[in-house]
């Protein structure tokens, strides 16, 4: 659906995107992560034909010209934007009429369907300037869904929504994905991406540093976490296989929690909880990224210092 090859964008002396090779497949729920200023938005803008690449190429829905396929793409880029003096419904009507396929026939039904999908059918006739932040966000989503796109490119789609709203939108996106829509979600909310996405790409300083399925990134580390009130006994029993002890929590080098549990219980060690240790997405992302460009001054994190001294 999206494939980029050595995509580069320079703004004057600043290299915003530096040789990115994205690979988003049909049916993916792709999470595009990275600190502020890492080049996420610039990449998205290039894919949508808003910003012209300095070098490199990309393919969107199999086409090298974004313009040809954009009618099948719904997008939310850096927050929604509307004509404040017009109603939500009127805004969507204008959006529908402005581009290809926006014939008058069926327009009303399309607008109604989009408003209903995002839960705004009751507020469609109010002027957008009277909308709350969450309502604007929903209307932005409605505009992206208006043309029943094959690909959704969403930048922070849950911005300004309350927890129920976030849940609602997540369910909506999961439903659309099950029906065949590919979702490309650009975000810095790791929890959001963990709950929604199945593949992840991480951008750092314009470079794609990780691109893998979430299952691989969250694969067990080969260690088992054991929660036990009898930490001392357990340590004695397991010996050098215990890598760390933190109060009542042990980290054991063992990739078979079931066998470990049986062994502990046979020895009379009470086990409160036990399971394979998994890397969190946060660990992965923090490991490969540096502080965002919005951080100015103050002590830098290790990775930054290393790079400076190298």
């Amino acid at each position, binding site marked *: 659906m999206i494939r980029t090859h050595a995509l580069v964008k320079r*703004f004057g002396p600043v290299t915003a995107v530096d040789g990115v090779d994205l690979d988003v497949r049909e049916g993916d729920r792709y999470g595009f992560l990275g600190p502020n200023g890492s080049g996420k938005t610039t990449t998205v803008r290039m894919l949508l034909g808003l910003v012209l690449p300095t070098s490199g190429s990309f393919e969107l829905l199999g086409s090298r010209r974004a313009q040809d396929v954009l009618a099948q793409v719904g997008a939310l880029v850096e927050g929604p934007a509307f004509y404040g003096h017009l109603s939500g419904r009127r805004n969507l009507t204008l959006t529908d009429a402005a581009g*290809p396929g926006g014939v008058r026939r069926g327009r009303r039904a399309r607008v109604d369907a989009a408003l209903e999908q995002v839960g705004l059918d009751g507020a469609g006739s109010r002027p957008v300037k009277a909308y709350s932040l969450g309502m604007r966000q929903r209307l932005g989503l409605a505009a992206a869904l208006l043309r029943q796109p094959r690909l959704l490119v969403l930048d922070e789609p849950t911005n300004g929504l309350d927890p129920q709203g976030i849940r609602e939108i997540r369910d909506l996106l999961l439903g659309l994905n099950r029906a065949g829509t590919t979702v490309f979600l650009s975000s810095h909310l790791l929890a959001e991406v963990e709950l929604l996405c199945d593949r992840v790409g991480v951008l750092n300083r314009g470079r794609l540093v990780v691109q893998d399925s979430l299952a691989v990134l969250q694969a067990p580390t080969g260690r088992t976490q054991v929660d036990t009130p009898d930490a001392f006994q357990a340590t004695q029993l397991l010996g050098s296989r215990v890598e760390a002890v933190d109060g009542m929590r042990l980290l054991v080098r063992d990739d078979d929690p079931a066998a470990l549990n049986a062994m502990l219980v046979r020895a009379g060690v009470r086990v409160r909880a036990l399971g394979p240790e998994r890397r969190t997405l946060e660990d992965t992302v923090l490991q490969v990224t540096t502080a965002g460009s919005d951080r100015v001054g103050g002590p830098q994190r290790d990775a930054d210092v290393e790079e400076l001294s190298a």
Partner: protein
Amino acid sequence: MIVVELSKLLRRPRTWVSIGLLVLLPTLVAVFLAVSEVAPRPGTGPAFLSAVLSNGALYPAAALAIVLPLFLPVAVAVIAGDAVAGEAQAGTLRYLLIRPVGRTRLLVAKLISVVAYTMLAVVLVAAVSYVVGVQLFGSGPLPSTSGTTLSTGDATLRTVLAVLYVGWSMLGVAAVALFLSTMTDSPLAAALGAIALLVTSGVLVGLDAAASVRPYLPTRYWLAFVDLFRDPVLYRDLVRGTLLQGVYVLAFLSAAWANLMTKDITS
């Protein structure tokens, strides 16, 4: 897309407020003239004003002369300056482009919308001032500025031509403002830039030391529509004005197009 732009233009309160003010100014002048019956001495004040007291049918031409030097071009500059930069500032430009609306198509639609606004403003100024003029001053056979009398049909034709010429003159301003509108994300900056050019041109037109560049200044031939009411019509300046505006329109529209086509939309 053209229909969308026109719909946006017509649904915008600002459109009607600015046209309302444009119509109000000549109406106000007419009321003062009618109440005081003190006409400017011939040769002073805006064109035709000294003659309208005796004939209201001439008032559309007088009204155009009243709004032409400043009010009308400022209104056109504001609307045209807002065309692209306003969308950029509101963030709607990116959503239009990814809908997708081609950039050329967008610029053409914006241009048509600006032309529609200009013609709407000029026609409404002329129409309302005709009604106001005839009501306040009465109508009669129209005297030409050369002293002969014009038939009603002839006078109407000349007024229509004057409306078209004034509208065309405004397109130069519109093209400059539209070009600046593609350069910046601030509609205010675009409008001010176009107005600054007009003020500069206006100053230089009146400056004898700048006589060498005078024929090329955008505002030089604006008031040439007055020549339409001579008998016979004095076409020389009208033709030059039309051609000169054509050059400005072509040059700045090309520049606007070239700029928009190669621009990174980061708003």
